């Protein structure tokens, strides 16, 4: 009997040890899952870098690159300093009361998201916390993506420091408020209106696109873009192949972006023990993402091809395809995602032309691809996805997805982008900081700002990189 009991106890101990091992494996998987999204999302920035430099004329190619690199460099620390705190602090709006899920409000944010005091334990290496850093990293890359979206629209005439200030306002504040309201499970847009924006078509893309529109109104067009009668001239970039490859890299990075929108199961902070969920706590599978992202890319490309035959717009159509279906990638049927994306690819160029006819010089079509199509995607989900439960779990009862809720979400995302973009750029314009002087713009911003040359063998007057700073 004693021997049997001893054997039983040994068996139990063995099973407990195996269970503990499984828990450790799951924790390590969860940490790795988000960690991997970070380098994948950095590919978005490699793509935007190539895309913007290719879309710039030879005389501006490096200054466009410098601007893009600095946006990344400043958004990451500012998101660490205060952006992460804004996300956790204000899902329910002002004054930052806690929400029903118990993971929001100023008090909660003060406890986990500041880089000082007791809160700092969650903002640095901590053996007892394997999640905060990788969550922060994924969100910081979302933040940097918004700045890169705005960056392409304003190339070839904006001052570097003004651009960085705008990038910080967008990346570490404006989109963060949109994410708190429309993405966090305690967000008032979600709990009151059932807003569903799984892949951030509105709260990342539309906010960034319309922030760029607000800036473009104050920044004005590049010299030579418009004729005296108001007609527009095409200003081609110096390297279309670089631009097109950059767009493809952005799409590669989107897989990481959308992967980071999934909450893995089995952890203390997970919605479910046995299945992945969206950030709203509703079920999702990686299969759903694979089906729908691929079909949306294809639909967007085909739609843009039939209308334009232009590789720039075809690859922009691929982006537009993903963005148009992004809000409902968790619940679209793949063929329906294809149809929605196809329609986005078709309307893309006419929407960009409409904007251009109103005197807006958006050098890469960012307002249309990200702003207009982002809102289109949010509203499309209201048409096709009405009736789906918008939340699950501790957040309690919530409305279902509806057309009215999605339209309200779209309006809020538009305002959260456009208003800060317009106001901040207006202040910078009044301070004389927004735009480079005319002579510098004509000479080329590389000559003015960058002590290097993109293509030193091209032309005798190209600026030469000094071997030593003293030379």
């Amino acid at each position: 009997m004693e021997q049997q009991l001893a054997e039983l106890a040994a068996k139990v101990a063995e099973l407990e040890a195996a269970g503990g091992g499984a828990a450790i494996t799951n924790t390590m998987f969860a940490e790795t899952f988000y960690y991997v999204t970070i380098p994948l999302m950095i590919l978005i920035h490699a793509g935007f870098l190539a895309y913007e430099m290719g879309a710039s004329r030879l005389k501006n190619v490096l200054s466009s690159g410098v601007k893009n690199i600095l946006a990344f460099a400043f958004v990451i620390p500012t998101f660490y300093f205060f952006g992460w705190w804004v996300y956790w602090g204000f899902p329910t709006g002002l004054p930052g009361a806690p929400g029903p899920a118990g993971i929001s409000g100023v008090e909660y944010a003060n406890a986990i998201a500041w880089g000082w005091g007791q809160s700092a334990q969650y903002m640095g290496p901590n053996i007892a916390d394997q999640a905060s850093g990788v969550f922060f990293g994924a969100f910081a890359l979302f933040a940097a993506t918004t700045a890169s979206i705005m960056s392409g629209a304003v190339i070839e005439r904006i001052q570097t420091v003004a651009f960085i200030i705008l990038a910080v306002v967008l990346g570490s504040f404006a989109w963060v408020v949109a994410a708190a309201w429309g993405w966090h499970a305690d967000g008032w847009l979600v709990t009151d209106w059932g807003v569903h924006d799984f892949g951030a078509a509105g709260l990342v893309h539309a906010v960034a696109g319309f922030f760029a529109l607000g800036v473009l109104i104050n920044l004005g067009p590049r010299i030579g873009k418009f004729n005296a009668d108001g007609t527009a001239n095409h200003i081609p970039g110096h390297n279309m192949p670089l631009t097109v490859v950059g767009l493809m890299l952005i799409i590669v990075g989107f897989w990481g972006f959308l992967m980071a929108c999934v909450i893995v199961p089995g952890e203390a902070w997970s919605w479910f023990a046995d299945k992945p969920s969206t950030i709203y706590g509703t079920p999702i599978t990686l299969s759903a993402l694979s089906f729908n992202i691929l079909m949306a890319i294809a639909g967007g490309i085909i739609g843009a091809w039939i209308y334009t035959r232009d590789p720039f717009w075809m690859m922009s159509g691929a982006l537009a395809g993903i963005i148009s279906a992004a809000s409902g990638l968790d619940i679209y049927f793949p063929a329906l995602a294809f149809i929605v994306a196809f329609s986005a690819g078709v309307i893309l160029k006419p929407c960009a032309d409409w904007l251009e006819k109103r005197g807006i010089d958006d050098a890469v079509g960012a307002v249309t691809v990200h702003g207009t199509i982002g809102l289109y995607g949010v509203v499309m989900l209201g048409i096709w996805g009405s009736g789906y439960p918008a939340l699950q779990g501790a957040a309690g009862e919530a409305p279902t997805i509806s057309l009215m809720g999605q339209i309200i979400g779209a309006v809020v995302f538009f305002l959260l982008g456009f208003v800060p973009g317009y106001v901040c750029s207006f202040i910078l314009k009044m301070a004389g900081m927004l735009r480079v002087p005319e002579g510098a713009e004509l000479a080329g911003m590389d000559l003015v700002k960058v002590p290097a040359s993109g293509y030193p063998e091209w032309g005798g007057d190209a600026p030469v990189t000094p071997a030593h700073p003293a030379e």
Partner: protein
Amino acid sequence: MFPYDKATWEVVDGAMFMGWGGVLPGLATLIAAGICVAVLVIGQRSESAKARAFDK
């Protein structure tokens, strides 16, 4: 378009896409395939017309 009678995720144990169990998935597949064919037809016609202009 929620494919279950009760609007809660607790009743969902299988397919959860829009229109599951109805005609929407099949119809959408048919339309998507039709778009692909139509785009190829239109593309061939317009590209041929442009190419012929270079033979004159």
